[in-house]
């Protein structure tokens, strides 16, 4: 067992942080093999790169090899991007060469039926004989900003405390690209495809012990060894936050006619039971996954901390209050001192407008944003408040001032707020206009530089806070 674990760790270390990579199927062209190599060079990978392609002499400035066997050095990781029919031969050569781990990008195996499953089994057998591990097949690649591994343009170069494992290549893409825009920082994102050798339980075990990782995100369609998966999930979820998006929730193939129980208990309900039993957090959409990951990364649980809401829009404020109840959040009852201070600022309106606080656009923009800053400080210093959600509806603010400049000033006001006992959560609302979008994006990046998460809707922000606040209630799971 000890030996298996060491081997697992070595092989996945080699997958994410290889000292040398062979790209089998690299090219000078625009297809996947060419792109993989180009992205590797552009993303600052500083290990050895060995392109393998018998048809080329030089690939993107590097000497090309006809076969992996011709490389006169050790190879940690091989990315296999060749047609399915030659993959088994390539895998055999990699295994004999002593490669630690291969990621097979090629599709066309068990997911296509036919001979696929048998070929997969043969590859696994060959790999095991040589202590080589296989990722995939049928996947898109590996992203690891600290080593420079990458599979798409628009990827962040900043590493964070989240690792993501995806059974879908497309969702792995979404996590890299949308994560970057949203301000979520990953240390690893891996597309794992058909999981013929390394499977979900292996990735969970590895990440449970991975020092860089505090949060694990998962997109799962199917699991082969259920018992092993449960054990690995229990272990991982006891040490880290695990968030799971399960695809294929409506499968109804196991409807039963023979028993009542069989009819009332659906397959996805079994998954929900699993999430409950292990303490994993489940989400049902990519958007919700991003919301939860951003919240886990940027919001810290504050014991018995309650919520304060401030921003422009009377109706939005009322709806925000309603939504708090839906997501099990409690609005803070401010202290007399805070209420008096807000009253003196002319915001509280005789104590009626204390929490949530409706600050119309002209108030937000007043005194170059300093009034807003003062209100935020009062809320942050109130011991009842653990989470402040502030929301700007951008278009109405434009009526009073230059939007870009006032938003910047308001955000600058936040720098002096003591955040040890209070979280700041931003919501920037607008109408979708491209000009406003530019300003919104800049504002979001400014907020990101202060480690403040930004959401598009108040409900999204509150849902994010709820994940953190209600997780801490459960006792830190």
């Amino acid at each position, binding site marked *: 067992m000890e030996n298996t674990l060491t081997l697992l760790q070595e092989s996945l270390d080699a997958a994410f942080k290889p000292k040398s990579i062979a790209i089998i199927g690299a090219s000078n062209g625009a297809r996947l093999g060419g792109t993989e190599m180009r992205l590797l060079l552009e993303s600052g990978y500083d290990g050895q790169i060995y392109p393998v392609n018998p048809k080329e002499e030089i690939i993107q400035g590097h000497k090309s090899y006809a076969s992996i066997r011709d490389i006169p050095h050790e190879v940690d990781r091989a990315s296999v991007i060749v047609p399915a029919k030659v993959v088994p031969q390539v895998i055999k050569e990699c295994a004999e060469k002593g490669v630690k781990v291969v990621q097979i990008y090629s599709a066309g195996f068990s997911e296509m039926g036919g001979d696929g499953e048998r070929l997969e089994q043969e590859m696994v057998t060959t790999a095991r004989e040589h202590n080589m591990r296989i990722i995939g097949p049928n996947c898109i690649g590996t992203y690891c900003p600290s080593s420079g591994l990458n599979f798409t343009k628009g990827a962040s170069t900043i590493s964070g405390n989240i690792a993501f494992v995806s059974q879908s290549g497309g969702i792995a893409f979404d996590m890299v690209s949308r994560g970057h825009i949203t301000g979520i920082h990953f240390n690893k994102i891996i597309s794992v495809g058909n999981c013929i050798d390394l499977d979900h339980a292996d990735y969970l075990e590895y990440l449970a012990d991975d020092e860089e990782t505090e949060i694990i995100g998962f997109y799962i369609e199917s699991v082969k060894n259920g018992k092993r998966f*449960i054990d690995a999930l229990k272990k991982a979820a006891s040490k880290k936050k695990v968030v799971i998006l399960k695809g294929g929730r409506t*499968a109804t*193939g196991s409807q039963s006619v*023979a028993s009542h*129980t069989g009819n*009332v208990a659906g*397959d996805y309900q*079994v998954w929900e*039971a699993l999430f409950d039993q292990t303490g994993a957090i489940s989400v049902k959409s990519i958007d919700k996954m991003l919301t939860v990951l951003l919240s886990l990364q940027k919001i810290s649980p504050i014991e018995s901390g309650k919520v304060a809401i401030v921003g422009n829009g009377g109706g939005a404020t009322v709806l925000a209050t309603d939504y708090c109840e839906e997501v099990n959040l409690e609005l803070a009852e401010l202290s007399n001192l805070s209420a008096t201070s807000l009253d003196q600022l002319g915001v509280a309106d005789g104590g009626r407008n204390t929490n949530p606080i409706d600050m119309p656009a002209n108030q937000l923009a007043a005194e170059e944003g300093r009034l807003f800053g003062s209100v935020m400080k009062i809320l942050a210093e109130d011991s009842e408040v653990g989470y402040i959600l502030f929301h700007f509806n951008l278009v109405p603010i434009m009526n009073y001032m230059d939007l870009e400049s006032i938003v910047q000033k308001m955000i600058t006001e936040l720098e002096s707020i003591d955040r040890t006992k209070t979280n700041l959560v931003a919501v920037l609302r607008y109408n979708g206009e491209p000009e406003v979008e530019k300003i919104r994006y800049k504002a979001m990046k400014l907020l990101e530089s202060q480690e403040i998460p930004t959401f598009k809707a108040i409900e999204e922000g509150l849902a994010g806070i709820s994940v953190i606040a209600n997780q801490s209630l459960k006792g830190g799971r």
Partner: protein
Amino acid sequence: MNTVPVNHPPIHVLNEVESRKILKEYAVPHNKSAFAKTKEETIQEADKMEFPVVLKVVSPLIVHKSDFGGVQINLQNIQEVEEAFDLIYENAKKRGVVSNGIEGVIVQEMIEGKEEILVGIKRDPIFGPVLVVGLGGVFVELLKDVSLGIAPLEENEILNMLKKLKAYPLLNGYRGKEKLDIDALVQLCKKVVDMAIREDGILEMDLNPVILREEGKGAIAVDARIVLQEK
């Protein structure tokens, strides 16, 4: 995918008599019950029991036995048992099931309690035995108010499953009602789970209902159906 393939192996549904044998083996509480092939045997068995008793038809041709009078309840004495026996055979005959299509009847002591609970097992193709519990009748059928747990399960996990039911307050002293024997229900569930782990041929099981009584008075299965996977 998390589904049974279309060509899954054939199943074998055990009748109540056969199902109860397995319950007995694992000490899952169930009411006193006996199988009788003839009217004479039925009377003998009933005589050994505490009245009132219940008679249920046993026939491979009859699945929904209560739909046409195949279950006779609240029988207070031997005479009523005799009448009920004849009635069951007549009712079956009206439906075209002649006496050689009937294996016999089950005689059992009638158990009264406060709530009817469904306790079931479903073997998930990926995760193995799953315990399913819910309050019988509309709660399970109409509102789908069930709670699931993947085996193995400890007592505290089973209790948490019960607490997740929307109808849980009905078991726990809702509006001044008596508290029911939740502890006994948890113990029963625990035995069911351990049974499903050991008996890997069990594909599905219904204990429907389990009669739950007041605190300290127990939880008792009064009907059982086990579905085996044919090997």
